[in-house]
């Protein structure tokens, strides 16, 4: 019996091993194959659009409106914002070509262009009067679409932070709307000391370790503290102003909604809307949420102002988040895809979206920024936006940007946690960035 057993075992082994080897080889071959036939070439015109979750509302509107106007079918796929880049690159490079139009976070424009996930559309954009490229807010158009002098997309959502404040809380504590970061920290300290027992805090700092949160808090300060503008190739972290910016975050953290490291925009927003926070740096659409009686307890009790500035800085803002749309090089119908992108970034569409609650979209064109409809829809916000958007400053957009931002976020989080000083956070990030580039 045992002899039999050994025989059957031994003779099955090599055959099984051969099968396994063949399968593995096949798998590797498939994996290494960057090109190859893509799936999904359908005869009918279905446009597949990749949309980020924060713009889901806008995505649905775009889908409906585009279908109405052109009759073409649109399929929108909504994806968490931190997955967009992964999906776009994998899609393009694995040759499976699921998407025709890709909404991307502007900081990844370099990475996406480098890896061939979005196409060079310079000629089309320059040549089309309809697109009206000069109408785009230039401080946005540059970072969002340009890589090595070529155009890779069109902006669809501005996304800047401005300072929202709760008028009542400021008044009863005798605090003026701060115009410098020093005043801001002092105001937060005063209010928190007075009202902490009631669960009310002077400020809410977004410190959660995702780029849109902790990164925004930092770049808000960097943009308004450095004398010039942020260099999208290599933001100037090696300057004293950068250290001051990081320090400003650290200074106000003890007086902010507990605890900054745990606070992302989904935690901070409801707190402001229920009147527990005096000041918050947030995207402009907070203005529309704040006026919605179903969600907000602070209707008509809030105000908006440009972000405070540093001693050497000027009124500005940072492009925290911010979205553009590009075309996949493997799109089955490029003309239709281009039509969609032009549609999404057109004056009419942008104006419609910025005056719709829940769309999550900001102005991207000078014409819409200054339009009467916008001013009517959100007067306070529109006024501040008009002041700040032309001075918008960009985060890094080079191909190494994703890794740069991760390194920055990590060090800022360590700083907020108390493991690093502001200076160390900046110098460590700077060193890491140099290594990435070099």
């Amino acid at each position, binding site marked *: 019996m045992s002899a*039999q057993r050994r025989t059957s075992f031994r003779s099955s082994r090599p055959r099984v091993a051969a*099968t396994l080897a063949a399968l593995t080889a096949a798998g590797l071959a498939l994996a290494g194959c960057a090109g190859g036939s893509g799936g999904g070439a359908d005869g009918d015109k279905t446009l597949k659009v990749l949309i980020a979750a924060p713009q889901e509302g806008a995505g649905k509107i775009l889908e409906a409106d585009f279908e109405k106007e052109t009759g073409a079918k649109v399929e929108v796929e909504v994806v968490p914002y931190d997955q967009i880049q992964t999906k776009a690159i*994998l899609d393009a490079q694995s040759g499976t070509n699921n998407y025709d139009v890709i909404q991307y976070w502007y900081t990844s424009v370099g990475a996406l262009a480098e890896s061939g996930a979005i196409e060079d559309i310079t000629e089309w954009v320059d040549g089309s009067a309809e697109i009206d490229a000069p109408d785009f807010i230039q401080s946005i158009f540059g970072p969002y679409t340009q890589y090595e002098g070529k155009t890779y997309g069109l902006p669809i959502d501005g996304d800047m932070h401005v300072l929202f404040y709760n008028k009542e809380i400021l008044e009863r504590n005798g605090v003026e709307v701060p115009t410098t970061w020093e005043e801001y920290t002092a105001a937060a300290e005063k209010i928190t000391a007075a009202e902490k027992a009631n669960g009310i805090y002077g400020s809410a700092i977004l410190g959660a370790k995702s780029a849109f949160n902790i990164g925004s808090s930092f770049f808000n300060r960097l943009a308004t503290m450095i004398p010039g503008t942020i260099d999208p190739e290599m933001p100037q972290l090696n300057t004293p102003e950068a250290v001051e910016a990081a320090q400003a975050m650290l200074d106000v953290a003890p007086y902010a909604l507990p*605890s900054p490291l745990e606070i992302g925009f989904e935690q901070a927003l409801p707190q402001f809307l229920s009147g527990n926070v005096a000041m918050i740096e947030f995207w402009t659409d907070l203005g529309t949420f704040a006026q919605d009686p179903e969600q907000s307890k602070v209707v008509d009790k809030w105000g908006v102002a440009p972000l405070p500035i540093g001693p050497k800085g000027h009124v500005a803002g940072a492009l925290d988040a911010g979205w553009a749309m590009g075309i996949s090089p493997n799109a089955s119908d490029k003309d239709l895809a281009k039509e969609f992108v032009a549609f999404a970034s057109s004056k009419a569409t942008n104006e419609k979206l910025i005056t719709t609650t829940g769309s999550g979209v900001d102005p991207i064109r000078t014409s819409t920024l200054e339009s009467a409809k916008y001013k009517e829809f959100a007067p306070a916000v529109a006024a501040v936006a008009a002041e700040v958007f032309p001075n918008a400053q960009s985060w890094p957009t080079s191909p190494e940007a*994703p890794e740069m931002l991760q390194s920055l976020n*990590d060090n800022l989080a360590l700083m907020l946690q108390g493991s690093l000083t502001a200076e160390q956070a900046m110098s460590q990030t700077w060193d890491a960035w140099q290594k990435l580039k070099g």
Partner: protein
Amino acid sequence: MTQSVLTSSPGRRARRTAWAGRTMLTPVLLAIAIVAIYPLGYLVASAFSESSLGRPFTEWVSFANFAELLGDGVTFPSLGRSLLFAIPSTLLALVVGFIVALSLDAAVKSGRIVRVLLLLPLMTPPVMVAVIWKLMLAPTGGLLNNLGQILVPGSEPFLFLGSSPSAMISLIVVDAWQWTPFCILLLYAALQTLPSEVYEAAQVDGAGVWQTFWKITFPLILPTIATVLVLKLVVSFKVFDLVFIMTSGGPGFDTTVSSYSIYRTALQTFDVGAAAAQTIAFLVLVTIIIVPLNAVRQRLHRED
């Protein structure tokens, strides 16, 4: 039917059996090839090359990825944190599970309902477990801090997830919360199969409660404890959802366990080669821990 017995020789039957055995084994080996061997091959190939997300295997770099591992200050700490998480969580779930399992026999009449209620944490998708607990532990508006405010009004909120070491402790507790029912179930079932004759004999001999437990129950249940330990440990090493949703590896890096660190490297910086090397390091760690424990487990089972 007896005819076929007479006409087929033992040798032929044995060969048919062997062939049948191989055939029946083939699907599972195919399955392993697809979900284990192929990815492992891909993993090893990536670890030895320069790979990014969409452009795998662009360049053969031999051991460069591994060398970087040693000095990057990220991999080894994350491996340590995986241990720091898995071992306490396992022990906690095991001890608590055992105590509850021992007590469950008192709930004979309402047994079914009690058992289902106790199973609830295990039935809940880990994503939702993470979301609920994150809300419960939140500094403002979270259940635990709310209770704290009621007991001690005006006190500072306690940062369960925003400070260390409570962030790691919170994760350990939540993971144990979810998996204790698993331990309860297995241990309770094992307790059910213990023969009662031994107990009756012990009682006739006049053995006390404590003695009975240590000299009879515990040794008999030891094999099962070992099995549960190994199973739970394996599960704990794989933790991802909890970290992803509750702390994002923070504060700072304090809860960045290996699986989360690999996720970051692969899907946030897209350095697949480095992620693959990290994964191999992780597999080595898991193997080092699990293999001896499993050997002990097998020996305990055989001793019956």
